[in-house]
């Protein structure tokens, strides 16, 4: 039992740390204040209860009232919950069982998954503005560089395949081949027409 308490404590701390960083968090919580959501993961034996209040989200291991929405789902479906179009699909696939207001549930999923977090700002509390900016700038540069490298690598690889080892044709070759095929097709069509013209006279 205390192990489960430890788990719920971890979940609660995680959610609320992210909530504190999320600029929209307070507004979203205000809208859902006083609502209770029961969430049972198919991978776990016991449901957790999420009590939303203006201050934070509380996670309880047991709750004797009636939750506003009761959900049973598998972990893999959590991400798809955001997309309202997919909800019915998930229910049909038996990945999701819902009792209660689906709209509320979507708002709750939004609260947990669509966070606007300014990482640079949060980081600056710990290491100062300058370092935070440098780090975030560095990370951005790194990401761009990696993207560029990936792009180049892809180009190089394509060139090796088409030019060096000739495992696959290059784009010009393909175009040329396609042209030749269409010319051949035209010729064939012409030949067919001529044959068709000649055939009746043979009889």
């Amino acid at each position: 039992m205390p192990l489960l308490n430890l788990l719920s404590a971890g979940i609660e701390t995680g959610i609320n740390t992210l909530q504190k960083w999320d600029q929209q968090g307070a507004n979203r919580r205000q809208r859902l204040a006083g609502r209770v959501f029961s969430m049972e993961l198919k991978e776990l034996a016991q449901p957790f209860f999420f009590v939303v209040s203006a201050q934070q989200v509380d996670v309880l291991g047991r709750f004797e009232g009636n939750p506003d929405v009761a959900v049973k789902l598998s972990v893999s479906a959590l991400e798809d919950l955001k997309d309202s179009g997919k909800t019915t699909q998930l229910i049909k696939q038996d990945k999701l069982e819902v009792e209660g207001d689906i709209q509320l549930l979507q708002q709750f999923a939004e609260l947990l998954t669509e966070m606007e977090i300014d990482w640079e700002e949060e980081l600056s509390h710990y290491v100062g503005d300058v370092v935070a900016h440098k780090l975030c700038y560095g990370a951005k540069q790194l990401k761009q560089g990696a993207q560029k490298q990936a792009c180049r690598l892809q180009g190089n690889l394509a060139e090796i395949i088409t030019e060096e080892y000739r495992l696959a044709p290059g784009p010009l070759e393909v175009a040329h081949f396609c042209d030749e095929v269409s010319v051949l097709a035209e010729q064939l069509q012409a030949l067919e027409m001529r044959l068709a013209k000649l055939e009746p006279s043979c009889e």
Partner: protein
Amino acid sequence: MTQQADDTTHFGYQTVATEDKVEKVAEVFHSVAAKYDVMNDLMSFGIHRVWKRFTIDCSGIRPGQKVLDLAGGTGDLTAKFSRVVGSQGHVVLADINDSMLKVGRAKLRDLGIEGNVEYVQANAEALPFPDNHFDLITIAFGLRNVTDKDKALRSMYRVLKPGGRLLVLEFSKTEQALLSKAYDFYSFNILPGMGKVVANDADSYRYLAESIRMHPDQETLKGMMQDAEFEGVEYFNLTGGIVALHRGYKF
């Protein structure tokens, strides 16, 4: 001789006059109030949070209910209850010690807990509330310090609504001999030292260790709750019985 026995009670391992105990306990908590939360985390290695979480799970708390958090100290339980019962509910944080109450109130205000919480300085033996008033009463790490525990339990029974429940979270007796040895060593040799370094008060923490030993064990407390007319009394041992949660209902 009997007269003398009636007039004294224990304060840790010392025997003091009954009317002095309240004052002596008050001194202890005035002294530790400011560092109370830090010391709790340090002394229990943060496990007290798990104990309190278990208590809340056992409370059956629902939106709209009335809760009394007795000896609520710095308001750990109150904060959670306040959020769960919501704007329709009501939480009373009661403590006999005004230093603790002040620290608790400041802390809860900082957390944004307001509107449905009331702060009352009250003695658990004579609760200043009407009969059949609360859905839930909790007393976490507080019963130990009450002078007349039976009177306090009867007083709690009186203010509890029929169908309501009482939760007593308190230090208790460990079942395993080895754990008990380690625990004794820890609480008599290490704890006062920690108290000296952090809160600059070794005596208060020596009192803590002693008062835990003087507190009735699981079965005795269960009997005391039954004597105070609580029904369906049961207890859960936590962390090998270092702490026990007693639960009783009023029907």
